Every structure is written in structure tokens, then in C-alpha cells.
């Protein structure tokens, strides 16, 4: 059941995005569309503008030109607390000042649903516990975040995003520094959320194989512009990747599953 044919408005649509920092234009004319229940992977070399695009989509950076719409409504017109109930972001850096426990961090995801001083209800605790459970963190609930490994901390922030109960999740390199099992678990989890809740997921990824394996659509960015946009098989071709990454790439199929696999193909001593 592919959501591409839905007649409802896309969960997130961005068109002709131009954005950057003062004096440093990063993105020029990037467009994306993600339907509810779909996972979009943004790939591309370092400095291609992946994180910047994610910031624009999340509303933390204003584009110089172009528009972002959530379910047909302009992003700029949505109140920030309502936006926080619709979109959850997990950045690359997850520093926490002060010794909060894992559960406290995950409960912070409930903030956009709660009043100023109200205590979390049993319902909020249930949601937080379920989020902890999804990411295999229940045993760490009472630990301080500072005591955790980088990978564990990453999962805490993913769980916090989940506790927000968003309709759209924006993940910046969600699996960087994670081991194979947790990479697989995290993607499996977000795929489940896509199907169960119709959540739309946009993730920047360095790992092209993960993009090939898990994403419905892939946006290949280079130098702040879109090089290709479509299904993994359409976008992740040897030719596209060679052009963008400026190195030889082998694209094949996993003989046992038929899944797309991408390998570096440049030999260290073969300069011919």
C-alpha cells in the first residue's frame, strides 16, 4: 500500500527552497514531497546542504525563498507549540546540560502537550515508557544521560522525539555511531511507525545502503541542489553516485535478498 496515490495533501511539501547563512548560500531550489507513512532519505556528500535542508523543513531556519507546507498549511503560519506536536526533530548533537535522567529527557517530549507547570499524567508516562521500550531503553530509565554511551544517548533522543507523538519526524543522521543491530532496530522501528501511525519520516543519511534498504524515496543532494529524486533504484545508480561523490562506486544486488547494495569500488593502487 504505497501512499503515493493518496488524494490528501502531502504531509510535508517544500518547493524551491533557497536557504543559507549570512554570506553563505547553501541550498538553491530544492523541493521535496513526503506523504504520510513514507520515509524519505536525504543523501549526499559532506557539505551538500542536508542538515540545512532539515533545519528549513523543521522551521528552525527560515528559507530565503521558497515555501514549506505541512498538510497543506504554510509552516510559517503554524503556532510553535502546535508545530511541536506535529514535527519532531532529532539533531546530530545531543548535548544536555545538567544531570537529567533518561526518563526525564523522554518526558520532555510531552512538553508541547502539557501546560506550564502541570505534572505528567499516567498517560504521558505510558507514552514515554512505550517510547523507551521501542528503543530498548527501559533498563536505563533512571540513569543520567551523561553516563550513557553516544549510541545510547542517540536512542534517548529518538525516544524523546517519539514521545512527542509527531506526524512527521526529521532525523539528522539518526544512525551515526550506532552498531549494526541498533541501526537495523532503529530503521525497523521507524518503518513500523510509518505503517502503524502513518508517520512521515525524513532522514539525512551517510549510509547509502541504509537509504537503499529502508527509504521509500531518496533525494540526492550535491552542492546545495537536487541531483536526483525518486525511488532508491532510480536515484542510487552507479553513474549518479560516481558523479556526486567523485569516486568509483559499485551498485549491485544482494544475492540473497535482492536488495540494492552500494560499495566503494575505487582501488587504492589502481589509478588507471
Amino acid at each position, binding site marked *: 500500500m504505497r501512499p503515493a496515490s493518496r488524494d490528501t495533501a502531502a504531509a510535508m511539501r517544500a518547493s524551491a527552497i533557497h536557504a543559507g547563512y549570512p554570506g553563505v548560500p547553501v541550498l538553491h531550489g530544492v523541493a521535496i514531497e513526503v506523504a504520510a507513512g513514507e520515509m524519505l532519505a536525504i543523501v549526499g556528500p559532506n557539505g551538500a546542504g542536508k542538515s540545512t535542508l532539515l533545519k528549513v523543513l523543521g522551521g*528552525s531556519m527560515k528559507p530565503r525563498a521558497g515555501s514549506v507546507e505541512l498538510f497543506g498549511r504554510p509552516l510559517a503560519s503554524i503556532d510553535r507549540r502546535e508545530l511541536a506536536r506535529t514535527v519532531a526533530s532529532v*539533531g546530530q548533537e545531543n548535548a544536555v546540560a545538567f544531570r537529567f535522567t533518561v526518563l526525564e529527557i523522554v518526558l*520532555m517530549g510531552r512538553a508541547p502537550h502539557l501546560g506550564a507547570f502541570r505534572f505528567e499524567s499516567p498517560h504521558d508516562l505510558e507514552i514515554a*515508557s512505550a517510547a*523507551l*521500550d521501542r528503543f530498548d531503553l527501559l533498563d536505563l530509565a533512571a540513569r543520567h544521560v551523561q553516563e550513557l554511551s553516544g549510541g545510547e544517548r542517540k536512542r534517548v533522543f529518538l525516544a524523546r522525539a517519539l514521545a512527542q507523538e509527531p506526524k512527521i519526524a526529521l532525523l539528522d543522521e539518526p544512525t551515526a555511531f550506532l552498531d549494526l543491530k541498533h541501526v537495523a532496530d532503529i530503521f525497523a522501528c521507524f518503518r513500523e511507525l510509518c505503517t502503524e501511525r502513518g508517520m512521515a519520516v525524513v532522514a539525512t543519511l551517510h549510509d547509502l545502503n541504509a537509504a537503499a534498504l529502508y527509504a521509500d524515496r531518496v533525494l540526492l543532494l550535491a552542492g546545495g541542489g537536487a541531483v536526483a529524486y525518486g525511488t532508491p533504484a532510480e536515484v542510487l545508480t552507479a553513474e549518479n553516485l560516481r558523479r556526486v561523490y567523485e569516486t568509483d562506486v559499485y551498485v549491485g544486488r544482494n544475492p540473497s535478498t535482492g536488495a540494492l547494495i552500494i560499495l566503494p569500488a575505487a582501488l587504492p593502487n589502481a589509478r588507471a
Partner: protein
Amino acid sequence: MNPAAGNPAPQRNSAAHLTRARLLSILAALAIALIVCAAAGAMFGSAHISLVRAFSDPASPDHAIFFGARLPRVLMGVIVGAMLAAVGTALQALVRNPLAEGGILGISGGGALGAILALVMSAKLGGGEAAVPLCAFGAALLSTVAVYRLALVDGQLEPFTLLLVGVIFNAFWGAAIMLVNSVVNFYYAHSILFWLMGSLEAPTYREAAIVAALGLAGFGVLLFRARDLNLLSLGDESAAELGVDVDRLRRTIFVSTSVMIGAAVSVSGIISFVGLIVPHTLRLVFGADHRLLLPASLIGGAGFMVAADLVARVAIAPAEIPVGAITALCGGPFFIYMLRREGRRPLSL
């Protein structure tokens, strides 16, 4: 996922997050400790008094000492200590740095200069007694905003730049105060020194009431934003993504902490380190949630200040040490200890 069967762990471990019951029991325990400190502060001092006579005979010296000297002083200690500790907590949340504090960042120093200028000017030009706390507030606000802006490097708050800017501000305000001191006549010299050292000497009930009202107003505003202060610990961007209007929150903290510091400084001068020691200790024991930490610092700071002032009064009785000297003597080593800890594991407290 069935929550009823699936995940009992967080509920079982009540220390993993703040509940209303935990908040109330901790605050009650701290309140009892404060009452004990306040009682000790009122009972003991350089002179021995009989409580029975103080209450039964309004003409006795015991009555005069108890109601005229000790009680207002304990009251002022409660108010000033409560405010300084709560302000420390809020400033630390704002800059995400457990080493931040009104005295260390030079905000109290700015407030003191404002108060001194108002004092000198109003004697010359005439001006209500409101001029002193008003100017202290204005100067504190100016210092807070300036310190914050100067510590921003590429839009990021640099923890050590922040502390260095605080050092410079302190030196600068100190020099400016000495300059005023050498220009004005001898009559003011004592009050100026009093401001530099910090003391709870000879307050009146009226002063105490005004400062308490200002302090409670500022504190109420902060308490209302306690959850947002928690979210600020994740960084400005993450807090914004969770629905916090960070710019507005920042302005709210600037203004309410400056009101509180301005009020405290205009009656007690610069008392440093209370806002460092108290929140840090409480955070270590009870956790980082500001819904607990803010009211806990309020009560804990009050108790700490009354205890420090008691030491200041009895240590070398009948002479008296300025209470600011006591807190600085405790706070200096404490700060070094925290700085060394922070160096190992940056910004993690």
C-alpha cells in the same frame, strides 16, 4: 504495545522523574531545615538573651534585641538568600552552565554600582528611596544582557568565555565603585564598602517587605517557566523545536532575575556564591528538574544565608564579619572544585 503489561520499570523507580508527591515531600523537608536555621539565627548571637523575657517583657533589652535586631536580620537573610539562590538556578539554566551566578557573572557588581550611584545622586539631587533599588535593577539588567551577548561566539554560548566576561565585569564594576568611593565624601565611604562586601546589617521591616515583594514577583514569573527552563537544557534549538519561544523566555529571565538581584543588592550589597553553592548541592541530591530546583533553591538559599549570617555574627563576637565574606570563603574553594570537575566532563552537572 501494551503499556499495562509491557513497561513497569519507570513507574517503579520514582527517582527517575519528578512527581508531585516527591516535590512536596522534598520542599517540606527543606522548609523544616529552614525553620531550624531561622530559629537558631534568632536565638543565638553576640549577646545572650532570654526568649521568655523577650516575649513577656516588652521593656526588656531581650525584647529589643530579639524583635529589633535579630528577627529583622533573620528575615532579611531569608529573603536575600532565597532570591540569590533562585536567581542562580535561573541563570544557570539560561546559560546552561552550573558555574553561572549573579556575583560571578558581574551582575551583582553592576547592580551595586547602580545602587551606589543612585545613593550618591539622590543625596545631591534629591530623589525618592525607590531610586536605589530601581537603579540597581536597571544596572543589573544592563549587565545581564551585556554579559550574555558578549559570551556569544558565532551564536553559541561559550561556557568559559562567559566566565571570563564575568571576571572582567567584576573587575570593571569594582574599579568603578572604588572610583566613586574616592570622589564622594567620607560619609558614604562606609556604605560603599558595605556594598562591596555584602552584609545584612541593620535592615528594617519595611525594607524587608519591599524586597520580599519584588523577589516573590520575579520568582513567580520564573516558576511559571520552570518546564521551559528544563527544555532549555537541551539547547536553544531543541527547546524551540519543543514549542518554547526561546527569545521571549530569555527576555523573561533577564528581567525577572535582574529585578531580584537589584532588590537583593540594594539592601545587602554583593553577596556572591550563594547562587552557586545552593543550586549545585540541591541538583546533586534531588535532580535537575527546575520545577523542583527553583522552589528548593528558594528555601535552601534562605536557610544557607541565615546559617552563614549566624556564623558571621558569632564567629568573632562581639565583632562581626560581613556575611559576604563568609559566603565567598566557602564559595571560592567550591567554585574551584566545580571548575575542575567541569573541565573533566564539560557542562554535565
